[in-house]
């Protein structure tokens, strides 16, 4: 069964690539592959590992579930592409990258896992390029440089970790730090976030979904599931490192979001801030805060995807996503504006959205440790909230809108549905507790 899980994204990518000039067919194949992949991942959660040439290949139930959630994030993007075309290579390369990412999670050997992760990242960086937009290819190239430098350091770390019994504790700790740096870099966490904000800002829709939602989620998953193996030399240090990286990322993201003049920039920095919040929750290291952090990660990803699709719709209708350009956008794109607003408020932790529930739990957990810090973080958290309120006020102004087009209906409905889902989850999170045990435990079992 695991063989089919690993094969499917590659097969889907190849099929979509072959028919890339027949856009409807390519999109159908992409959606079908994504759905089938999600179903396959959830079908046999306790599949036995595969042994190939002496290498163990396995995906445990926790990884499968979170990977399924991450993959499902692609579906809204593909649906939106029905009426908002992306580059012909975007979705085939996204599936290819997903295949490499999955394979990297399946191999226990750290060197092979890192090489596969690198291959996936290279593929995904190419997806970020928007052919008509000046500068996106330069930003992509810079991101590639950063990722390859970090990747080579991680390969060195992986090699040292494989020889843990022969190297000293100092070398093993250094190796684990190299791996941790790669993970923090990929999550856009402080101090390695600098490459991520411009990449997400200039990226295509699939690129935004990949680098703001899917990759950080999968990488965090990788980090948490290797805590007792790759991270063993620094396991005691991990909560402190995650907490500090989380606080710094949150601060930088919140302050950065305040000064953004475009929705893409706002999304990039809020995504960094919220990933910081997740890391804080994991670093606080209580059961309640870890569970809240994992749920917050899922809500964050949903909101990011909604906003990313919304940005694409608004760019199509108004030319770009600068705040000046979306003045009065509510008249031409009411569903999109509303959906983006709901998702943005969830990301900012505004009640009664889904993000508020988990954020409140984490604030409480942090307040137990240190009340001044909790208050500071609360104040910082107002930054993204203010930015989204500013967006809402700009979009809802009554101004003449020459030369604009109405929103495309299907993607607008997708955005609104995702925003509505976040509102629903916030109003009544109880349905989550009715999830089957074999799904709920792996979900929170990190």
């Amino acid at each position, binding site marked *: 069964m695991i063989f089919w899980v690993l094969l499917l994204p590659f097969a889907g990518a190849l099929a979509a690539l072959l028919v890339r000039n027949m856009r409807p067919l390519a999109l159908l194949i992409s959606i079908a592959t994504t759905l089938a992949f999600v179903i396959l991942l959830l079908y046999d959660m306790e599949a036995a590992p595969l042994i190939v*040439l002496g*290498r163990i290949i396995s995906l445990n139930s926790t990884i499968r579930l979170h990977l399924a959630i991450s993959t499902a994030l692609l579906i809204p993007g593909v649906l939106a592409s029905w009426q908002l075309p992306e580059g012909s*290579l975007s979705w085939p390369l996204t599936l290819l990258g997903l295949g490499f990412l999955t394979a990297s999670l399946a191999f226990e050997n750290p*060197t*092979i896992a890192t*090489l*596969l992760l*690198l*291959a996936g990242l*290279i*593929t995904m*960086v*190419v997806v970020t*390029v928007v*052919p*008509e937009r*000046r500068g*996106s*290819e*330069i930003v*992509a*190239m810079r991101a*590639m*440089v950063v990722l*390859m*430098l970090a990747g*080579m350091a991680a*390969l*060195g770390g992986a*090699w040292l970790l494989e020889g843990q019994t022969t190297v000293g504790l100092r070398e093993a700790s250094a190796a684990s730090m190299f791996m941790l740096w790669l993970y923090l870099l990929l999550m856009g966490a402080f101090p390695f976030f600098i490459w991520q904000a411009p990449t997400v800002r200039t990226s295509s829709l699939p690129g935004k979904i990949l680098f703001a939602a899917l990759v950080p989620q999968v990488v965090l998953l990788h980090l948490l599931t290797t805590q007792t193996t790759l991270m063993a030399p620094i396991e005691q240090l991990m909560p402190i490192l995650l907490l500090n990286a989380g606080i710094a990322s949150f601060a930088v993201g919140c302050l950065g979001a305040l000064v953004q003049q475009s929705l893409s920039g706002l999304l990039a920095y809020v995504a960094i801030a919220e990933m910081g919040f997740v890391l804080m929750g994991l670093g606080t290291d209580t059961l309640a805060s870890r569970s809240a952090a994992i749920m917050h990660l899922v809500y964050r990803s949903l909101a990011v995807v909604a906003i990313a699709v919304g940005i694409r719709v608004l760019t199509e209708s108004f030319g770009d996503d600068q705040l000046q350009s979306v003045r009065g956008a509510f008249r031409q794109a009411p569903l999109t504006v509303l959906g983006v607003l709901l998702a943005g408020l969830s990301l900012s932790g505004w009640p009664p959205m889904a993000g508020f529930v988990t954020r409140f739990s984490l604030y409480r957990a942090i307040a137990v440790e240190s009340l001044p810090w909790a208050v500071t973080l609360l104040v910082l958290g107002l930054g993204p909230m203010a930015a989204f309120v500013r967006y809402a006020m700009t979009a809802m102004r009554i101004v003449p809108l020459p030369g604009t087009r109405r929103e495309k209906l299907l993607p607008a409905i997708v955005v609104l549905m995702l925003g509505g889902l976040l509102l629903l989850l916030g109003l009544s999170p109880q349905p989550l507790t009715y999830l089957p045990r074999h799904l709920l435990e792996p979900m929170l079992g990190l």
Partner: protein
Amino acid sequence: MPLDLAQDPKVYQVTVTLLIVTALFVLKDRQLLMVPLLIQYVLVASLLSQQIQSPVFVIRVMLGLAISAIGLITARRTERTMARVRQASVSEIGSPPPHSEGMSTTFRILTLSLAVLLAFGLWNSYRLPLPSAGLMLASYWLAFVGLGLVLVNTEPLQIGLGLLVFVSGFAAAYLVYQPSLLVIALFGMVEISLALAVIYLGEAWLDLFAREAERA
């Protein structure tokens, strides 16, 4: 104790080859840049094959040929497009287009010289536990020169070239400790993916540049 180049003929040969490769990297002609790219792949392949008992020479040389070949196609197209744009700009407004062709030759020479000095200094003072001094020198040299090329260039194709050289330098040291065929193959796959990505980004940049030049 610093290693003496004159006493070790292999190190001397490697140094001379690396000097030639670095000198060729100073050139601005994108097509000619594929020559030192290929040479450094062959050099690394031959150095590695002396340490690893596997068909690494064939794999690395074929990898180098493939990457250089696909790079040459894009480089050729880039040169033609740039020449056409330059000609059109000179005939219309009497001067070349404002697009920067990267840093000046002097700056490139200075940066790459600095990179070589850093590599040499590190090779003398901090030895990696590698079985061959020549391999260690090649690893440091190519890694630093690759980083230097990333810094001095402004186009995706040339930045990508620097990145490929850096990765090749890393591979020179890394694959000695990871001689498994699977790792060598996967590393090669990463390099091919990187090369294809660089080509794609280079082509995207070129298409945009050509369109903007036509509009201007």
